[in-house]
Each structure stands twice: as structure tokens, then as C-alpha cells.
């Protein structure tokens, strides 16, 4: 061994070892190149994407949220203006309805009044006509009665006179004058 070692120069390698070394390193390089490095690169890429992707996703979500808020606000404003419009319209319509109703009521009342007046006029006319007929009869009757009464009165007055005259006669006959008068007032 020692003799062998003495003849060997450690800096002059045997060719066989060089070949073996190339094969060994080649094997490691192939595995690294074909399997290990691509996988590691893939992991690094996935990791970077996971981080950046997360940030991008967050940004996208923020943008989306802002957009949604904007849209919501726009819709809200639109809804408000629409509501105002509807309210105005409703108010106008209400006004119109009230106007309409008032007009109708006035018309109605006017019509009622007119009919009442008409009825009144008719009734009056009727009454007038009726009265006109009756007044004649009444007047005639009254006149008749008055006349009758006056004639009767005359008769009565005449009777009174007669009775007075009679009484006077009787007073003169008996001497007492008062009693026949009170009898006559009854």
C-alpha cells in the first residue's frame, strides 16, 4: 500500500474516476434540471401568484365594492328623484281630483238647488192655481155669508127693535124697565 501510494500523485487522477464523476454529477444534474428545479420554480411561482393574486383579488373586490356603491348611490338618487316625481304627480293628481270633486259637488248642489227651486215653483204655481179657484168660491161663500148674516142681522135687528119696542111696551105696562134688557143680551 505505502509503496503504491508513494508512486501515486494525488493530482493525476485516473481516467476511470473522471468518467464515474461525470456520470454521478450528470445524474444529479439531470434530476435537478428535469424534476427538482421545475417543481421548485413552480412552487415559487404559485407562491408569488398566491400573494400577488390575493392582492389583486383584494383590489378587484375593492373596485367591485366601489362600483357597487356607486351604482347603489345612483340607484338611490334615481329612486329619490322618481319618488319625488311620483309625489309631485300624486299631489297634482290629488289636486285635480279635489278640483274635480269640488266641481262635481258644485254641479250637484247647483242641480239640487235648481230642482228644488223648480219644485218650489211648481208647488207654488199649483197652490196659486188651487188658491185662485178656492178664493173665488170662498169669496163668493163669504160674501154670501156676509150677506146672509147681514140679512139675518137685519131681521134680528128688526127683531131686536121689535123686541125693544115690545119691551118698551111691556115696561110701560108694568113699570119696571131693567129685566127685559138683560134678557135680551143673553
Amino acid at each position, binding site marked *: *500500500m*505505502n509503496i*503504491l*501510494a*508513494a508512486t*501515486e500523485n*494525488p*493530482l*493525476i*487522477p*485516473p*481516467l*476511470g*474516476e*473522471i*468518467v*464515474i*464523476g*461525470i456520470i*454521478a*454529477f450528470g*445524474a*444529479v*444534474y439531470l*434530476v*435537478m*434540471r428535469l*424534476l*427538482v*428545479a421545475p*417543481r*421548485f420554480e*413552480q*412552487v415559487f411561482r*404559485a*407562491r408569488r401568484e*398566491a400573494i400577488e393574486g390575493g392582492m389583486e383579488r383584494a383590489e378587484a373586490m375593492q373596485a367591485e365594492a366601489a362600483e357597487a356603491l356607486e351604482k347603489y348611490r345612483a340607484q338611490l338618487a334615481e329612486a329619490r328623484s322618481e319618488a319625488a316625481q311620483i309625489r309631485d304627480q300624486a299631489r297634482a293628481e290629488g289636486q285635480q281630483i279635489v278640483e274635480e270633486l269640488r266641481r262635481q259637488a258644485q254641479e250637484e248642489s247647483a242641480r239640487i238647488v235648481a230642482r228644488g227651486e223648480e219644485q218650489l215653483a211648481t208647488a207654488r204655481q199649483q197652490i196659486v192655481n188651487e188658491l185662485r179657484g178656492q178664493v173665488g168660491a170662498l169669496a163668493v161663500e163669504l160674501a154670501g155669508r156676509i150677506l146672509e148674516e147681514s140679512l139675518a142681522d137685519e131681521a134680528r135687528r128688526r127683531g131686536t127693535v121689535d123686541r125693544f119696542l115690545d119691551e118698551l111696551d111691556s115696561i110701560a105696562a108694568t113699570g119696571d124697565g131693567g129685566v127685559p134688557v138683560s134678557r135680551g143680551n143673553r
Partner: protein
Amino acid sequence: MTSSAHALGGVLAAGPGFQAPGLEAFYPHPLWTFSVLGVDFEITRITLILWIATLGIIGFLVATVRNPQIVPGKLQFLGESGYSLVRDGIARDVVGPRGLPFAPFLASLFFFILANNIMSIVPLAQISPMAKFAFPLVLALICYVIYIWVGIREQGVGKYFKDILFLPGVPLPMYILVTPIEILQNFIVRPFTLAVRLFANMFAGHMLLLVFSLGATYLFTVGGLSYVFGGISFLMAIVMTFFELLVIFLQAYVFTVLMGTYLNGSIEAEH
């Protein structure tokens, strides 16, 4: 029988004198020898350790990505941390913005060297295949070919070699000095230092551990006052094991970072 055990036998058989461990630890008995196309293969325990480390790191990597999740589990986190260290720390930051396609290659380098280096403190193995010059050399040569090829591909043959031979922004007379240095640096020193740095670190680490542990064993057999020194030697062996742990990671990282800077030089025109 491990090489360390061989050495231990040598130490104990040597009798009175301590025989320091030598290169024989790096040349264990071949378990199997064969020849393919005129190339002699010697399958030794170091070759087996290389295969175990290779299969181990492949198994580990496959296990980490077997079921990848966005929120990683412990195993995935471990593999991901190693891969991210190379991908972000080296491929992106050192090589430059166009360095990401090189991440798999750099990560393979890092994990392969790391797994092999770790074998230097794994019980029963206790030697890194990177302590055999052939394996770091293979890696350095692969890097050498790749960074020159990338330089040519990115800048074009003419511009790439012209920039190396005649460094832009240097006064004309200085090229006498600069050009040979640049050629030497780019085409000889770089791959050589890349290989030697890793090799020498693992080689020296193994030698250190061997010396301290064999020394401790020897001193304990001598007896007497040597027990104290044996204890110190044993303690040093443990301390150096931790140091080795640091070197294991550091060298794997340094090798990959340097390859990153070379690639950066090849991709970007300005040096």
C-alpha cells in the same frame, strides 16, 4: 476494512514510533476492477461513497419536491432553502438578471459537492470523494467548458476572446503584461484553482482528522503522560470535525459562487 482502519493497523503495528498517515488513505483497495473501452475502472470504497452520496442527494431532492406545497413542510423547506440560496443568492444576485436559467446547474453543483463533502464526517465513510482530485476536477472542467461556451454564445467568438486577450480600457503597452495574465487566469488558473481549492480543502480536512484521531489512538496505547496528550489530540479531532462541518458547507458554497462570478463575466461584456 476502511482506509482509516488500515492506517490504524499500521500505527499499532509500527511499534514504538508514530507513523503519520500518508496518501494510502486515499487509495483504498479496489473492490472491483473492470475495463470498458480501454478505460480502467477501479471501484473502491470512495467510489461507493460517491455513489451513496449521489443517490442520497438525488433521493433527498426528489423527496423534497415529491408533494410540493405553497406552504412548505419541513423537508420541502430544507430543500427549498438550499435551492433558493443558490437560485437567489448566486444565480440571480451574482450571475445577474440573466442568470436564472443557470440556477439548476448551479444548484446541482452545490448539492452534489455538499452531499459528497458531508460524507467526510459521516461515520463509516469519513472521507469525501472530493478529496480525490478526479471528482473536483470533473466539476471544474464542466464549469470551464460551460463558462467559455456561455461567453461565446452571449458575446460572440470574436468579442469574447478579444476582450480576454485585450482587456478594454488598458493602455497599449500594458498588454504585454495584461494579456498573458488574462489568458493564464481565464483558461488555466480558474479551472485549476476551482478544482484544487475544493480538493485540497477536503484532502487536508481528512488528513487533519486522520492525524488527530490516529495520534490520539497511538498516544493512548503508549500510556503514562501521553494519556493527557492523547486526550488533547482526541479533543482536537472532535473540534476539527466541527471545523470540517463548516468547511463542508463553505467549500460547496464557494465553488458555486465562483462559478457564478465566472458565468457573470461571460454573460456581461464588461469585466
